[in-house]
Structures are given as structure tokens and as C-alpha cells.
């Protein structure tokens, strides 16, 4: 065990882990963070706190993670390479760890073009792989990226993302291998709708034995409506939504679509549970956090184990 992370303890115990996420508000509204997190609290082992997701300015992931930590819960602080250079990253990591935040996710970040400040200069001083490596060295070698010793090194359990659906597909296992080489502990995947392709990717992962070096949490997103499915198919970069998903949602009335979406999410979890190398689920119910407990319960992942 490298850290005090609850997620690490769950994964080490061999149980399937469950994480979910909380997008911070676009304003100084701490109660919004508390409301969203309270919905998730008994049903997950960690709550991802997104970092200016889709390049829209929001309350910082650090601040929202502190609020969640102070509720006695387990935030997973996301950090994107887009908005910070290595100095800012490291000071935030130390600061977060000083507040007891011990789990984080290293990401490149969506391009600023997609957000509300498309005129902003992206930083990208490091990429996500280099960020992983920096956080690992801060933890294991107690040194800053620049080489100096840290007095009070932050012991982060280090996560990253993987998108099995972006192309070139043949690179997707290799890029995971690079993140493992850099020192990542766990992976949360892009939302999985194309299960055949996910199985193919996982086969590539297990064929190389990478599942023994990293914990993979499968990304699950319930569709609220057929409109959301179409939007994700056409507008969200790197998303793979098979036509069958859209057809199935079209096949039920508008009022029944949310329930159908949840049913599909639960079915996906059931199927993915059987895939070798999957160690848990990351449930991203976008602005629909109240449905996470239902999904976790129906998927047989409740109650969460005590560690």
C-alpha cells in the first residue's frame, strides 16, 4: 500500500470499486458541492471532482475536493495539464494533500476551444503522462519535478484516464502501457457504450498482462434521453455511441427514456463485470447524480465494503 487512499484500499482488497463524479458549480456555491456529494456518499468509494471540465470555468477542483473531504468523504481531485504549469500543479498537489486529499486523476484536459474561454492560451507545460510521472516521483522519491527534495511529500494514489474508443485504436493499449510505465495506479475509462470494442481493448490489455499492473475502472454513463445520446455521438470528441444505443432509446416513450437509460447502464455493468481485468466502475451520471445510488444498487454493487 502506497497511500492512505480509500480507493487504493478497496482495490487492494480485491473488491470491485465504485467511483462517481461531482462537477463543481460555476460560482461560489459550496452548498451545490455538498448537495451533489451527499447524494453519492454511501454508494461510492471515491468522488471525482472535475477540473474546469469541457474547458468551462468552475469552482476549482482543489476547493471543491476540500469541501467534500470536510464532509468526511473521499474526493478524487482531477487535474488537467491545460490550465497549470508544473509549479502550479505541484503546489496544488501539496496543498490538497495537506487537506487530506490523497487520490487524484491526471488528465490532459479538453482543448480550450470547447469552453467559454476559447481565446485562452492552453498551458500544456507537461502532458498527462509526464504529470503522472511527476506525482509518482513526488510520492515515491520525495522530490519535486525540478529535482529538489520535498519536506512532507504528498502521497497520492494516482489515476489517469484511458479512452479505448479514440483512434488509432491500435495505440490505445500502448498508450495505457506508457501511463503504467510513468507510474499510474488506476485508470478510469471513457464512457463505455460500445461494449464489443471495450472487450477487444481489454483483451489487448490482459494479453500484455497490464491488468496486473494497474486497476481499471470501467466508465459508465446512463443516458437521460435519446437527445443526449445523439449529442454525445455527434458532438463529444472521442465518444463511441453505437446506433443500437440510439435505436433502443428511440424505441421507448420520452417519459420512459431515463428509466431505459438506467437499465442500459446496469446491463452494461453486469456484462463488464465478467471481463477479466476490470476492477471496478466509474459512474459518470452527468448532472444526474441522484440516480447513482439506484444504479449501484441495481448492479449489485451495494453496500460498499468497509475498509
Amino acid at each position, binding site marked *: 500500500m502506497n497511500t492512505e487512499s480509500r480507493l487504493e484500499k478497496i482495490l487492494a482488497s480485491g473488491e470491485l470499486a465504485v467511483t462517481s463524479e461531482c462537477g463543481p458549480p460555476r460560482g461560489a456555491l459550496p452548498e451545490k458541492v455538498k448537495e451533489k456529494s451527499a447524494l453519492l456518499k454511501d454508494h461510492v468509494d471515491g468522488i471525482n471532482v472535475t477540473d474546469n471540465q469541457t474547458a468551462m470555468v468552475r469552482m476549482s477542483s482543489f476547493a471543491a475536493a476540500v469541501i467534500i473531504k470536510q464532509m468526511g468523504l473521499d474526493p478524487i481531485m482531477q487535474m488537467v495539464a491545460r490550465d497549470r504549469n508544473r509549479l502550479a500543479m505541484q503546489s496544488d498537489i501539496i496543498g490538497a494533500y495537506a487537506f487530506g486529499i490523497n487520490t487524484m486523476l491526471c488528465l490532459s484536459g479538453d482543448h480550450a476551444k470547447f469552453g467559454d474561454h476559447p481565446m485562452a492560451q492552453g498551458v*500544456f507545460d507537461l502532458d498527462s503522462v509526464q504529470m503522472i510521472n511527476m506525482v509518482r516521483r513526488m510520492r515515491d522519491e520525495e522530490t519535486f519535478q525540478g529535482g529538489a527534495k520535498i519536506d512532507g511529500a504528498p502521497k497520492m494514489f494516482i489515476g489517469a484516464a484511458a479512452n479505448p474508443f479514440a483512434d488509432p485504436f491500435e495505440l490505445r493499449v500502448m*498508450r495505457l502501457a506508457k501511463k503504467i510505465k510513468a507510474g499510474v495506479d488506476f485508470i478510469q475509462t471513457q464512457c463505455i457504450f460500445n461494449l464489443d470494442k471495450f472487450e477487444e481493448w481489454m483483451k489487448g490489455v490482459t494479453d500484455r498482462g497490464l491488468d496486473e499492473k494497474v486497476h481499471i475502472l470501467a466508465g459508465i454513463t446512463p443516458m437521460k434521453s435519446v437527445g443526449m445520446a445523439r449529442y454525445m455521438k455527434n458532438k463529444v470528441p472521442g465518444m463511441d455511441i453505437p446506433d443500437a444505443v440510439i435505436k433502443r432509446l428511440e424505441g421507448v416513450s420520452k417519459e420512459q427514456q431515463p428509466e431505459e437509460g438506467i437499465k442500459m447502464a446496469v446491463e452494461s455493468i453486469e456484462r463488464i463485470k465478467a471481463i477479466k481485468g476490470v476492477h471496478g466502475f466509474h459512474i459518470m451520471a452527468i448532472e444526474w447524480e441522484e440516480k447513482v445510488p439506484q444504479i449501484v444498487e441495481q448492479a449489485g454493487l451495494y453496500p460498499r465494503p468497509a475498509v
Partner: protein
Amino acid sequence: MITAEQKPIQEIIQYIAPYSRILLVGCNECVTVCAAGGRKEVGLLASALHLNSLKQGKTIDIKEITLERQCDPEYVEELAPYIDGADAVVSMACGCGVQSVAGRFKTSPVFPAVNTRFMGASLGQGVWAERCKGCGDCVLGITGGICPVARCSKHLFNGPCGGTSNGQCEISPDVDCAWRLIWERLKELGMENRYEDLMNAKDWRPGGAAGPGKIIREDLAQ
């Protein structure tokens, strides 16, 4: 080469509004090749400015000169005989040329007529694309001859990110994913195994992080 595009004519007109004698200076190097500020463009801009001043009922005197290289003091010196006859200089060179002229003639206002865009290569008639960021520590030898700094929208050294779609960058279907190109090229070269080499955090100092760049060749400098 350095690429540039002419500024909107209204912006140039605003710069020179207080002046009636203009020295309009082109450059025979990069801006000629990218058709932004060579002899031809100097002539066209002079005509446009004349036309505008006629419309305003004013007269304007424009002296047109195109230097061999506006970023070189030896050629900038050729402007000396004309500088006193002008109230202002309009430069159609890249930012390097504009500053060379402004640095030499300290009492003459110098205005840029082009926006300097990037270091690029020609893809065909009338098309130029960015190829180099001048990062000062070239990695093309390990990325199959395709630059991740200039051509990946997030300048990732260990790409591609998760936004690639149909081989194109997440920012636009018109932009190739640089890491897709790198991967294809590594395969063509039989160097696929190099892909999993970690590329370490970049030292940005040679590319500008250490302050304005300067090269001094002791063997050549006097």
C-alpha cells in the same frame, strides 16, 4: 519560413491617418513567398491607401521600397536616404523586420501592415501550415519527422489524447491528429517499438522560457 497575412486595411488606415508622407517598405524574403509583403503587395497596398485618401479628399505621398531582407541591418540601411522625407514608415515585413527598421530609425514611427503568423511550410499554391514552434530542442528525430509541439493542439509529447476522431484532432476535422501521423510514420519506418518510450518533461528554456532568445557565434561575431 515565417508566414504573415496582411492586416485589415482599416487598421493600417487608422495608423497612418495623422501622416501624409509614408515610406512603405516590403521585404523580399518570407513575406514575398507567402504573398503578404513583397514588392507586389507593397504596390497593391500603396494603391489601396491612395484610393482611400482620395475618397477622404486628402493627398498622401507614398514612397515604395522593397528591401532584400528587412531583418538585416545591412539592407535596412538602404532606407536612410528616404527616412527624412517620410512622416511615418509602414512595414510589410514580419515582426523581425518591423523591429529592425524601428530600431534603426528611432525618431520615425513604424507601423506593421501584416500580422506575423507562424513558421510554416507551403502545402501547395496559396496554402501554408505551421510546422515549427522554435522550441530550441528539436525532437523530430524521435517523432518520425512530425512535430508534436507545432502540430498537436495540446503539444503532447506522449500523445495521442483521447479526443482523436477518425484520425483527426478534437479541435477540428480539418486538423490532422499529429500523433496519428507520428504513429503512421513510425510504422512506415519500422520504428513502432519507439512509441512506448516515455518522453520526459520538456525543458522549455531554449524555446523562450528563459527569456528572449539570442544566438552568438563567436567565430562570426565581431
